[in-house]
């Protein structure tokens, strides 16, 4: 006799359970809040809004009887997904986060113009949001996104290595920076070989920064391609000289953005250019060999740069958009208003977000928490994007980088490289 308990499973029981379960799920049961706002963003946008007791959106959720469901992706996949969702007949996403160098006219047309909403149901003290960032989100006269985060580039340096090399203060001009980089290309006391500077070779912002240090640019806001070739040549000459002297690593052509962080943390490089927001990571005692010793200043312009033409660093900004095919645009706008409020902007800044409001930088809590707040605010005042959005921007950037790399590693003269940039990128420019 079998004494194990028998589990009987009849066909009727199986069918009943299946049909009942399916019906219950089809009824779309509500477990928590009445509404859900689906947000398509990078993980960092969710993180800076806090969780549990530190949830900056708790009051909004309660007032709107709504929950927020974040779908997060890495930056490029996120943009790809956002544009695809916005191209459908309808989408479940109410709010998406967009990078300021993406909205061409075609892309901007996928999103709700916010001008009218900003007038009829205004955002708190809208003028407090950095005008340059708002301008970057205005396409064909339509405001399509509300800025929410920026990453402004600064010059980071390892103070301990500077002291070891007998350098009393960080550079104030590009020429001093080059001199210090050469001096700091040495073997440190700990036996670590140090290069003066590390820069990723696959990002346009670095050569653009060096061109701007001489008053030049790659593509201006009004789509002038290399408006001052001589300034671009001077910038690339500096990079080439640094590579030749070893002040840029021999692995320059394969160096990535993450290498900049690890090299600085390990004391393998003395200088790099990164967003100010990386300060905490670079000084994180769990990752860095130099916690508290890695500092940042504004990237210096050349001594030859005219006094009335301040060095324009590079800023990348994120903004919140509402897809035109979103279902509940009122809820989406309500979320955007709340995230853009002074309280939430400051709260996010304290959680590591680059604040888009000028007033946030004056807040004592932020000044205490972020020692770079003041310098970052100064740099932000003159900063602008690496280049404006246009359909062929990605290809133009890749072409420019190809020529820059050839020039830096000495496979092409700087003059020829700049001429090639102009020749090859011209057909890609918007009419």
């Amino acid at each position, binding site marked *: 006799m079998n004494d194990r308990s028998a589990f009987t499973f009849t066909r009727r029981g199986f069918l009943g359970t299946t049909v009942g379960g399916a019906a219950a799920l089809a009824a779309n049961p509500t477990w928590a809040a009445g509404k859900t706002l689906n947000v398509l963003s*990078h*993980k*960092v946008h969710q*993180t800076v809004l806090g969780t549990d007791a530190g949830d900056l959106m708790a009051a909004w959720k309660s007032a709107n009887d709504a929950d927020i*469901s*974040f*779908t*997060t*992706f*890495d*930056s*490029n*996949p996120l943009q790809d*997904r956002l544009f*695809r969702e916005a191209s*459908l007949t309808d989408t479940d996403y109410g709010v998406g986060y967009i990078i300021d160098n993406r909205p061409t006219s075609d892309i901007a047309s996928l999103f709700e113009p916010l001008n009218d909403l900003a007038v009829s149901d205004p955002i708190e003290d809208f003028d407090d949001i950095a005008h340059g960032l708002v301008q970057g989100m205005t396409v064909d006269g339509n405001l399509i996104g509300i800025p929410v985060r920026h*990453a402004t580039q600064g010059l980071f340096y390892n103070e301990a290595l500077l002291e070891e090399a007998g350098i009393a203060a960080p550079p104030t001009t590009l020429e001093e920076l080059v001199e210090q980089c050469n001096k700091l290309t040495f073997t440190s006391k700990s036996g*670590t*070989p140090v290069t003066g500077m590390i820069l990723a070779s696959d990002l346009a912002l670095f050569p653009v920064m060096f061109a701007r240090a001489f008053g030049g640019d790659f593509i201006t806001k009004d789509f002038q391609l290399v408006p001052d070739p001589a300034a671009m040549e001077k910038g690339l000459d500096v990079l080439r000289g640094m590579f030749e002297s070893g002040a840029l690593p021999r692995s320059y052509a394969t160096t990535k953005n*993450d290498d900049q*962080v*690890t090299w600085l*943390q*390990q004391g*393998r490089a003395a200088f790099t250019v990164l967003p100010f*927001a*990386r300060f905490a*990571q670079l000084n*994180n005692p*769990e*990752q*860095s*060999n130099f916690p508290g010793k890695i500092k940042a200043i504004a990237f210096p312009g050349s001594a030859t740069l005219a006094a009335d033409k301040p060095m324009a660093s590079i800023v990348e900004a994120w903004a919140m958009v509402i897809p035109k095919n979103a279902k509940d645009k009122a809820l989406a706008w309500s979320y955007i208003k709340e995230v853009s409020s002074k309280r939430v902007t400051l709260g996010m800044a304290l959680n*590591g977000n680059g604040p888009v409001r000028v007033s946030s930088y004056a807040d004592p809590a932020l000044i205490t928490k972020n020692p770079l707040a003041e310098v970052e605010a100064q740099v932000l005042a003159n900063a602008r994007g690496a280049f404006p959005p246009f359909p062929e921007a990605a290809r133009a950037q890749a072409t420019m980088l190809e020529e820059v790399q050839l020039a830096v590693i000495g496979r092409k003269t700087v003059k020829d490289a700049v001429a090639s940039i102009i020749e090859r990128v011209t057909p890609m420019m918007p009419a």
Partner: protein
Amino acid sequence: MRIKRLIIGSGKAVAVTALLLWSLLPIAFIVMSSFKPGREIFAVPPHYIFTPTLDHFTTLWTRWGVFFDGLVNSTIITAGATALAVIASTAAGYAYSRNSSRFLDSSVLFLIVVRLIPPIVVTLPLFPIVNALNLNDTHVVLMVLYATFFVSLGTVLMRTFIDQIPRELDEAAQIDGAGRWTILRRVIVPLAAPGILAVAVFVVVFAWNEFLFAFIFTATKAKTAPLVISEMIGSIDGVDWGVLFAASTLQLAPVLLFVIFMNRYLVAGMTAGATKG
């Protein structure tokens, strides 16, 4: 003669060692780094001796809870896709093995051609269709897609396996009154088990690691672990390498153990029909 044998033996040993180093070093680096204190991961010169820590796994648990949801989703999708692919491949392989016609023979070629199409070509046009069917962000859509992409290879593999099973066994079963379905279940499947396991290994490895389809067709509910890892790599506020390596180790371990365990079937699958006269 002896010297020649010694030289050949040494050459083989060097080649095998180089191959092992080439394939195992990156894995060893990832696994070791997941237990290293953050500051030592990229230390120059590298630290081979270190005090192991579980800090990165703890941080992964507390800050990236979504990764563990991703592992659960990956498991469900992999299991479903494997079951679907194995069932369809076995049935199709049986049909191809035991039947012959001009149409069937030419369709084998079509099966192989289907494998040559880059997934991205079918992915984007599928997005609005999947969306219209309300299948976006469901486990089912990935199970079906993964299975679909492997049924062709699985069918060819299974046909080769089933070809090796004597037709006399089918005929004997038929005389005993068995139908096609019974023959498949009672005769073919038990004898073709190594082939089924080989197909399963291929599908499991593919489905567990797949990124493109998961990226296009999921959002939150069916998000798989590789997608979460890609988010860690692309963090705009800095990559936490220790946590990333901890996640990679957890992502790698199950499939690595599975492949090691099933290794002999995998070899059988790859060499099926190789000696057929």
